[in-house]
């Protein structure tokens, strides 16, 4: 298992087939991807090309039909459901296009959610939540419910929730897809800062070239295969 220590994510020869009734949908076909530590990778491609599917495989939300997903030297596609859940809690922060906050919880409660799965004391959890909210610049909105926040603010809460456990890997699925340009830029600023200043490794799905321009590298997904740096 002596992977190159520089490589955090290693997707090897992955195939993903969905079955819808008798129909088979081949989404990924022998795909390879390596993400070094500290990279901010943009994953682009047309709608339906399989970007979310690939991100789900890297985040341990789904399993490949064939091939392997190795993260920090661990084959996560072979973990049991239970251990995979624990692995996600420890190593992955997820940011969704539609924020996916729990509407019944305040911003700070939403951010606190992943910490419930740790052994931290209540006081420590509070400290982590405060830090995460201040990183995204929303300390003053801690007690607000999602519906009381703008889209951009909700997404920042989403990012705070994703980073509160200090995960190895930050996975963002079209994080600016539902935001206007200004709010989107703020989110991209934030992700860039997390990458540059906090050294977070980020994989971001987007089909906005404006967004991918912020990344350190861009890959394109077409016909189940990746083509690197098609457009710089």
């Amino acid at each position: 298992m002596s992977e190159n220590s520089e490589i955090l994510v290693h997707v090897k020869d992955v195939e993903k087939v969905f079955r819808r009734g008798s129909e088979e949908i081949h989404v990924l076909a022998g795909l390879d991807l390596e993400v070094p530590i500290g990279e901010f990778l943009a994953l682009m491609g047309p709608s339906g090309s399989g970007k979310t599917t690939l991100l789900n495989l890297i985040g341990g939300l789904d399993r490949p039909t064939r091939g392997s997903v190795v993260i920090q030297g661990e084959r996560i596609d072979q973990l049991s459901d239970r251990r995979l859940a624990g692995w996600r809690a420890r190593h992955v922060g997820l940011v969704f296009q539609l924020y996916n906050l729990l509407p019944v919880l305040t911003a700070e409660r939403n951010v606190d959610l992943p910490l419930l799965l740790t052994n931290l004391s209540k006081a420590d959890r509070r400290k982590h939540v405060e830090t995460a909210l201040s990183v995204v610049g929303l300390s003053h909105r801690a007690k607000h419910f999602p519906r009381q926040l703008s889209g951009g603010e909700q997404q920042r809460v989403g990012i705070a929730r994703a980073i509160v456990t200090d995960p190895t890997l930050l996975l963002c699925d079209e994080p600016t897809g539902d935001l206007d340009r200004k709010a989107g830029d703020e989110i991209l600023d934030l992700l860039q800062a997390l990458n540059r200043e906090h050294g977070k490794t980020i994989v971001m799905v987007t089909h906005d070239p404006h967004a991918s321009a912020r990344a350190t590298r861009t890959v394109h997904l077409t016909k189940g295969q990746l083509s690197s740096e098609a457009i710089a």
Partner: protein
Amino acid sequence: MKFLYLVGCNLRRKKLRTILTLLSILIAFLLYGFLCAVKEALNAGVSIAGADRLVVRHKVSLIQLLPVSYKDRIALIPGVDAVEHQTWFGGIYQDPKNFFAQMPVEPEPFLDMFPEFVISAEAKERWLKTRTGAIVGRKLAERFKWKVGDRVPIQATIWTQKGGETTWEFDIVGIYDAGKKGVDTTQMFFRYDYFDEARAFGEGQVGWYGVRVKDPARAAEVARKIDEEFANSPAETKAEPEGAFVQAFAKQVGDIGTIMVYILSAVFFTILLVAGNTMAQAVRERTEELGVLKAIGFTNAQVLSFVLAESCFISGIGGLSGLGFAWLLIAAGDPTNGALPVFYFPTGNLIVGLILVVVLGLVTGIVPALQAMRLQIADALRRT
């Protein structure tokens, strides 16, 4: 414990729906409690009937009277331990709505036959000394605020006195208590000798006999011997176990009760189905949220238990308060003003009710909980 607010906050999501669901469960269990009390009331007496006691009545019907002379003849039949007799008086106190039973009896044989009617030795002594004396049940005394020493007038509907007087006056000499649960304490018993001498007609006639047999195992045999003794006489008898007698008596009101029990049961289960469906619906609406929880790292088992905890919580709050209210209302007493003299929440039914509360919580929760558990994260998130 730190997960508790995750369950709690979901109940606040749609407050109106939660409140309506809680209310319908509450009403269902209130209904259930009442149902049990009514059912128990209709069967009252059957369950406390002595296995060693027979009732001997006129073969044709309960309204036909028997000669008082049968008492000595029954006492002589082998296997008979003791005999007493009672007669339906059917009087009214102040208002026909104030229904309760009154019976003339012979104090000593009567008290000996029914040890479940408990009175003090002094009260018994007073009764034996007072010709117009009557003993009343605790509930009856409380209902009309009667005390020992009170004189109560009862209007006869059947038994007028010699000279046409229809009002009978009785002196309350004692109040009896229930010696065990389910004993009717809404009755009044007064002295047969006073009754027999004062009534305008029917002297020497009584309503029915209570007979205690020496060996309960041979009760049927003794009953047959009693009926044989009076066969081919002008007043033939029908002897049967006390339980069967009470049941036949209760049947007269019981059929309406049975229909009511069926209707209320149907209502109860309908409400539970509706409430259960609402709870399942509430979980289904949150599929993506459950998907997010899993994506964050909550395990399948955790998600399953959140959903189950939620349904059990609703069912618990609604069900327990329903049973609680039922308990309070039933404790407040017979709602029919006398038609259901024994009215209480049977412990056995209460326990069944508590079990039903848990079952409701699990049953309504388990289907959505399993769905939530099996939910593929990728699919759940795809819905958005």
